[in-house]
């Protein structure tokens, strides 16, 4: 059953132990000038689950995951990430916690001036400094294989198609074996076939790397393939929370506008 904001939204969470919770957000607030984007967001990400955050454009979905990795500083509330309060850490401690997070950006965010190989080794050579060249190459080949690409190492990002860029970007995100994956609209701008492939890839990455994921999207096909649990944001609040089946069975007009 869908838990709307008026009812208890934490029913599912309460069933699980607190050690099972990787991200615990309470009363998160974020404004840009006078525009309140996140008014009061509370959610939890459990170990091993794919949590889809659904909402209209401008509902603050991307702002939410950018607050989680402190690309944006929240105005209020708390974010507990892997047992640490993100708002109160900085410097080395923040870098260490970011190493455990993989982030797939909406645009892919591949470094334009670098080849695919340089893009992939960029986080490796900076964080795992003791790795030898052969180990780096093995790791690169492994992640490329996992995202279903080969023979693109010396290509520049501009030579790749949209789907390939997303795959390389995903490969770069998983190269450090993250505990949590954050996907910011992973299928935006892709054709339906490639979108489904990327969604399947998200599931396969979750299984292979045993990650827990927050997937920001408004693509229902992606939701259907990836979601273990769904949270819908509306006007800066958590509007509804539940499983895919519960959302599809809902007669709420806002939810129906997404699913039917």
């Amino acid at each position, binding site marked *: 059953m869908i838990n709307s904001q008026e009812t208890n939204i934490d029913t599912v969470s309460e069933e699980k132990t607190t050690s099972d919770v990787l991200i615990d957000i309470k009363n998160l607030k974020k404004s840009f000038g006078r525009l309140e984007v996140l008014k009061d967001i509370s959610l939890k990400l459990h170990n091993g689950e794919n949590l889809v955050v659904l909402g209209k454009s401008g509902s603050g979905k991307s702002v939410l995951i950018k607050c989680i990795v402190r*690309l944006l500083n929240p105005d209020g509330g708390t974010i507990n990430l892997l047992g640490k309060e993100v708002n109160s850490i900085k410097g080395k401690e923040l870098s260490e916690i970011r190493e455990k*997070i993989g982030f797939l*950006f*909406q645009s892919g*965010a*591949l470094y334009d001036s670098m080849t695919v190989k340089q893009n992939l080794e960029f*986080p490796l050579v900076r*964080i795992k400094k003791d790795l030898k060249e052969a180990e780096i190459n093995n790791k690169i080949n492994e992640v490329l294989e996992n995202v279903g690409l080969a023979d693109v190492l010396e290509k520049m990002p501009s030579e790749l198609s949209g789907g390939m860029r997303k795959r390389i970007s995903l490969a770069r995100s998983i190269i450090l074996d993250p505990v949590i994956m954050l996907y910011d609209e992973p299928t935006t701008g892709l054709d339906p076939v490639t979108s489904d492939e990327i969604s399947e890839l998200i599931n396969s990455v979750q299984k292979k790397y045993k990650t827990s994921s927050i997937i920001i999207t408004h693509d229902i096909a992606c939701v259907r393939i990836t979601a273990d649990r769904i949270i819908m944001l509306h006007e800066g609040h958590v509007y509804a929370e539940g499983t895919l089946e519960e959302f599809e069975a809902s007669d709420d007009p806002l939810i129906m506008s997404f699913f039917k």
Partner: protein
Amino acid sequence: MKKLKIINLKKAQSLATARSIKLSEDTLDQKERANGFFQEVGDMALFIKQIFKETFSRNFEFKEFLRQCYEIGNKSLPLIIITGTIMGLVLTIQSRPAMAKFGAVTMLPGMVAVSLIREIGPIITALICAGKIGSGMGAELGSMKVTEQIDAMEVSATNPIRYLVVTRVLAATLMLPILVLFADAFGFIGSWIGVNIKGDVSLVLYIFQAFGSITFLDFFPAVVKTFLFGAVIGIVGCYKGFTAGRGTESVGKAANAAVVLSSLLIIIVDMIAVQITDMLS
């Protein structure tokens, strides 16, 4: 007549009200602009502080620094060589009639050498580099900001200030004096060609005459200020790119603002450097 007066009075009142509204809008606008200016100065000061902090931190990105030196130095060299040669040639051709009036044509190489080394070489090279390097930095970092590449770098636990900004600022600071030396050297060659259009002076004699007029006090302050010009180009270019907005339009704006602000600051730094040199000598 009375009505007309009232109308006029009303008109005057409405004009006065409109003027006062306009004035208060102008005042608000000026206030916002002043606030924006101070905000920008403050932000840039914090940006420079971060650059200093990261410059002296561990894990210096040496490989990226060398790449930037190549990008800034080597790729700007052809432009600087052509400009330097033309600068020397034009300066000589333009000065020759005036020098001839006083029968001082033999002093032409010395005059050109002092002008080139003290002022024209550094300032022209710096302004060209502000256009080429500064706009490049503003556009590249601005586009990285728009396409979330800077965010991606930060999320992968790499400090973007250390990797992107410190390397570029140091490379610009180090490369500009070298480019100025090339501009001066090729300026001499251009000047020698200019002298030989209406005369016959060997290159050895020309160089002997030119360097005979230059002292350490001509050379040293000029070199010092070129380091400052390089730092200005690097800092402003990176700052404008780093603070670009989110749309693609802001990339162009960042590149443009980088050129305009760094050119202006170069001229201001030059003015201050000239004053200091004058006081010291």
